[in-house]
């Protein structure tokens, strides 16, 4: 176990190195003078231009800039925003709570709704309930999250005025964004859990449990769900990435100040340090969460000896 963990942690290093390189190279690949990104569309003379270039290190060779970026990033210095000259790390750290609370709320909705729907559909296999629930799940997969968010706003905030539409960061204003973000995960988890449960319910030990006279409810909760949930765990791990990306859209619609909207404003303002910082944060957390999921996997299912990661 410890050896496996170490191996996985060691694998993080090349991944992060490539990620940081890609993120950094994007600055150079982007057309236009980076100085323009710093000052905006204000006309400046050549001397000032040269000064800014030197101050930001744009005059140095690219690999030099990259090494500097990497060395500083390792010390927690992600540079300063071109726009408001605040440290990027501060901007990202300030944005994290909003995004994380949104993701957690969405995940709670996704897992709870997904588990209930998936279990119900599996128990009632082949009935109208099953068909209806699974049709809803397919619909949930097909609705673009940005549209769902707009519809929820239209119904609950514009027409019914039940919830605050935008702008606040309290629990009430978390409801609609969390539903918007969570529906997709709920649909995916429901579909997975259903097929996983159906597979488990066909196993011998379930038949044994049934013939021993274990109540149907107990068969599901005590025997089947535990095993059926294992493959679902991987999906939940992958969902973190989807949720993180989805947060960009959802935060835009509900004008929340999170990592996603920070990234988007960084892209729109050509504020590269902000883009680098947020993408780096997003990727690192995605990789780390999936590592944790893999570890959780071994804890839930002792049969897994890590030859390879099930995909």
């Amino acid at each position, binding site marked *: 176990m410890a050896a496996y963990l170490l191996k996985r942690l060691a694998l993080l290093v090349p*991944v992060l190195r*490539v*990620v940081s390189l*890609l*993120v950094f190279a*994007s600055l150079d*690949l*982007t*057309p236009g003078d980076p100085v323009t990104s710093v000052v905006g569309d204000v006309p400046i003379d050549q001397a000032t231009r040269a000064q800014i270039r030197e101050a930001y290190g744009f005059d140095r060779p690219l690999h030099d800039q990259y090494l500097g970026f990497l060395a500083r990033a390792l010390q927690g210095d992600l540079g300063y925003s071109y726009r408001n000259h605040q440290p990027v790390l501060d901007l990202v750290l300030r944005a994290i709570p909003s995004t994380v609370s949104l993701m957690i709320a969405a995940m709670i909705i996704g897992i709870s709704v997904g588990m209930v729907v998936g279990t119900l559909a599996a128990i009632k296999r082949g009935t109208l309930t099953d068909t209806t629930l699974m049709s809803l799940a*397919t*619909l949930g*997969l*097909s*609705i*673009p*999250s*940005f*549209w769902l968010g*707009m*519809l929820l*706003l*239209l119904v609950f905030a*514009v027409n019914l005025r039940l919830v605050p539409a935008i702008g606040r960061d309290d629990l009430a204003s978390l409801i609609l964004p969390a539903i918007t973000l969570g529906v997709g995960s709920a649909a*995916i988890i429901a*579909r*997975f859990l*259903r*097929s*996983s449960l159906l*597979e488990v319910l066909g196993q011998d030990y379930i038949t044994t449990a049934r013939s021993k006279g274990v109540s149907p409810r107990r068969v599901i909760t005590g025997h089947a769900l535990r095993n059926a949930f294992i*493959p679902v765990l991987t*999906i939940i791990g*992958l969902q973190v*990435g*989807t949720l*993180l*990306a*989805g947060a*960009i*859209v959802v935060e*835009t*619609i509900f004008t929340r100040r999170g990592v996603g909207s920070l*990234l*988007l404003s960084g*892209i*729109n303002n050509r504020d590269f340090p902000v*883009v680098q910082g947020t*993408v780096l944060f*997003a*990727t690192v957390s*995605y*990789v780390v969460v999936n590592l944790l999921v893999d570890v959780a996997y071994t804890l839930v299912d002792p049969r897994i000896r890590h030859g390879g990661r099930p*995909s």
Partner: protein
Amino acid sequence: MRRLLHHPSATLGLIVLTFVVIVAIVGLFWTPYDPYAVAPRQKFLPPDAVHLMGTDQYGRDILSRIMYGGHLTLLTGFLSIAMALSIGITFGVVGGWVGGRTDLAIVATMDILLAFPAVLLALGIVAVLGGSVTNVIVAVGIATIPVFNRVARAAVLSVTARPYVRAAVAMGCSDRQIIVRHVLPNVAGPLVVLTAITIAGAILIGSALSFLGLGAPPPEPEWGVMLNDARAYMQLGWWLTVMPGVAIALTVLALNLLGDGLRDLLDPTSRATDAHA
């Protein structure tokens, strides 16, 4: 194909998809009104017999815009996946067949691509390349390559271990013959399913990028762009928000239904897996 038509949800998906494609093709040549024509006196008209889906903030006919914009959304889905499919399969087959360092290099590259969530990867590529329909297609295509690569590589590895392939090798069949005759037919089923589902995902990602202002530029009636436009006028007309979204959801739903149906037919043992996108 005949079996497909006996599968209710697959049939429904196929019918809806055909309808959407036909409407989008017709929209290229004919729409009830000019999709770009501004009519200041006809702003925010609700749906009625004259404007079946109402008009937007510039008095443009929404139905005409959805019809004409359909090809942008559909092309994003089809072309990006065509790109991901051809590149992904090529590298998957080559890596799986040749093995060794080549394979290792390909697998490592794909793992790096997979280290990013697909939407984030596509977003990053578009941010670098600049926003346009072409760049969205390239970005979504690149982000989806690993999905096809994995399936193709895994299939090659499992097939090459089988006795009849070893027999074919022993009989002196060329690599090309073995791959075309034995390997590809074995992956065809899963790949068809994967294609339908990833096109659905590509349309979702593509329209999300356009919605965020990173895809097609604003006057274009791309469905995601139309929804972004509608954000500012939500309280002035529900149809501005509802109509383009229905178009996207219907298209994606049709593809997902088709994908599910195909999976039931071609790959009865598989679980309901979802595309990486």
